[in-house]
């Protein structure tokens, strides 16, 4: 009897082993070693790394580009996440009903998601090209002049945000679509019998019932907002004057252009912490206010 239980225990752990091993090797060990590396100076040539405590973090506090990147990233998250979620929900409601060409519409909304980010970035590069780019050509019909979207500090970041929203909304729509189809039709029928308005139906039935999905999508979107790097590299290289430098891009630059691996490790630690706090806060604070069936 005792033996069999042990066997069962062993079996369970063996089944878990592949996943645990993969997670440990590719996620946990690198994360921990990054935190350790951030306490050492960057080795150079014949000079080995030295233990310098929190010097890298002190440098970071005085580094204006780090603050710029963090600020840009927060703006990016606060603006793109709600817009992408809102748009995704609207699109999902749109293609959930029985309308003609529903499949084609769903496909159209989903297309941006299947494009690789770099390909999408290149398409948008063309949209944003001053003068003969698509946006300026359309703008000209309405009498507006050439706008250098990616070449001005004030428009470059919003221009990148638009790409993210465009790319992510279609993906999140799929989750909302799945959630909407889980909502029991009985509820809608009951509401109709009560003569509820469309807004009432949405706010009293649909919105609360898709709330778990909204939370899931919001966590993902927020985390994604801090993981953006492809379109920055492809479209602006962080310029002009760091206007589009986001945290992960700055980490890449510090690590692989400046070869300051110690400082890059410290920056990565900050990013890790931000992401950890975001997910914890969302799971623990928001979870209580979410209605689960």
């Amino acid at each position, binding site marked *: 009897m005792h033996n069999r239980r042990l066997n069962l225990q062993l079996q369970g752990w063996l089944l878990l082993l592949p996943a645990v091993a993969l997670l440990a090797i590719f996620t946990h060990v690198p994360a921990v070693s990054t935190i350790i590396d951030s306490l050492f100076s960057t080795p*150079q*040539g*014949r000079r080995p790394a030295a233990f310098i405590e929190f010097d890298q973090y002190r440098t970071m506090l005085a580094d204006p*580009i780090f603050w710029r990147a963090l600020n840009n990233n927060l703006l990016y998250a606060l603006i793109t996440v709600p817009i992408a979620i809102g748009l995704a929900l609207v699109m999902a409601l749109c293609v959930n009903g029985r309308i003609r060409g529903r499949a084609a519409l769903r496909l159209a909304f989903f297309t941006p998601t299947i494009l690789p980010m770099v390909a999408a970035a290149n398409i948008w590069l063309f949209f944003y*090209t*001053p*003068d*003969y780019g698509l946006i300026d050509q359309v703008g*000209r019909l309405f*009498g507006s*002049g*050439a706008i*250098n979207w*990616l*070449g*001005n*500090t004030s428009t470059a970041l919003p221009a990148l945000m638009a790409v993210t929203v465009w790319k992510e909304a279609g993906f999140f729509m799929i989750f909302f679509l799945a959630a909407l189809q889980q909502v029991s039709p009985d509820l809608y029928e009951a509401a109709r019998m009560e003569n509820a308005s469309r807004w009432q139906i949405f706010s009293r039935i649909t919105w609360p019932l898709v709330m778990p999905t909204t939370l899931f999508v919001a966590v993902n979107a927020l985390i994604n907002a801090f993981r953006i790097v492809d379109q920055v590299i492809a479209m*602006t*290289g962080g*310029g*002009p*004057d*760091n206007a589009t430098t986001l945290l992960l891009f700055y980490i890449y*630059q510090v690590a*692989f*252009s*400046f*070869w*300051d691996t110690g400082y890059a490790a410290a920056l990565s630690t900050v990013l890790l912490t931000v992401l950890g706090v975001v997910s914890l806060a969302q799971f623990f604070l928001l979870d209580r206010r979410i209605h689960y069936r």
Partner: protein
Amino acid sequence: MSKFIRIGCAAAALTAALLSSPAFAATEITFYYPIAVGGPITKIVDGYTAAFQKQHPDIVVKPVYTGSYQDSLVKAMTAAKAGNAPDVAVLLSTDMFTLIDNDLIETIDTIATSAADKAWLTSFYPAFLLNSRSGGHTWGVPFQRSTIVQYWNKDTFKVAGLDPDKSPATWDEMIAFGKKLTKRDAAGQVSQWGLEIPSSGFPYWLFQALATQNDVILANESGTKVDYNGARVVEAAQFFADLGQMYEVMPKGIIDWGTTPKDFFEGKTAIMWTTTGNLSNVRQNAKFAFGVAPMPSKLRGGSPTGGGNIYIFKNNDKAKEAAALEFARFLTTPDMAADWGIATGYVATRPDAWDTEAMKKYAASFPAALVARDQLRDAVAELSTHENQRVTKALNDALQAVLTGTKPAKAALDDAQAEANRILHPYQN
């Protein structure tokens, strides 16, 4: 049955392959190279290595295309840190100090010691060697090198009532010509700009041309000090911004490096500044008569050089270093330098390359190719320091701030100078 036959066949094939391989042990070297201009570069490089191996049957060269200059440096450095460095690589001439500081490259003059080798190391244009030497040593061999030149659209000059064969020769003419060449409609919308000087990615390089013309050198030879905020540097930066903001002959804000040639082909700009490496590209795509001219002058003319050098990586296996040196020598003979220059538009790196038959014929049929070479007389070293990427980024950020109008020139460059001083401080003793 069939399984046995298959195994038998595989074994036989394997034996045959082993027997047919050469009996002597060939020295194998890895060659990293980037691509920064248009054209079938991979094919050309493969052809070069094949020709080299024919001459040197005891050496096997493995060419590896490693992406842009930036990617190539990343790959070479990462590979080196993992103990798997390339034996020879083409990287930016300005990466020299980075490679020295990381103790990755060999001084060429310590392995190339014969009289012929010494002659070889002095056979290049002095302007190209400026970015190849430091501390009395030669660290890189000039290979795909360039300067900045002006390309101008002769048709637009004619329409604007300018002499189509005369490009702006001074800063004042840049403004005067630019004003005539900039076309506005009644609503003030611009359909054609006078001039485009790109400012995305690496604005420091094009700015360095303006600084050179204002007779100021941005960094010292040992790469430990920069002059980012001297009066003449500030004046040059102000002029760069004024072209767009005050004289309105150039688009405001950041002008993309990649789309500038396209703007030129589309007639959106009458003049553009870009690398001579774009020469073949312009020749193929410009549907109008175009000219190529050296940089205009203010106090003097001139442009920084640019492009890549061949570096030989440190290796405990001296046979590999010797083979790498042999390959570097092969790639830079007068004939090869001429061939490479004709195929790409890069400036052939040594004077005697221009005396080869192939080059003479090419230059006679396409005199624009000579402009970049002749400009070498006035050329200066491209900005290069220790911690190069970081120190140039300080200048790039400042220039972009000035060009987008977010900071005045003096304040932005003062910031850049302070940042550069901070970074370079450990190297200044």
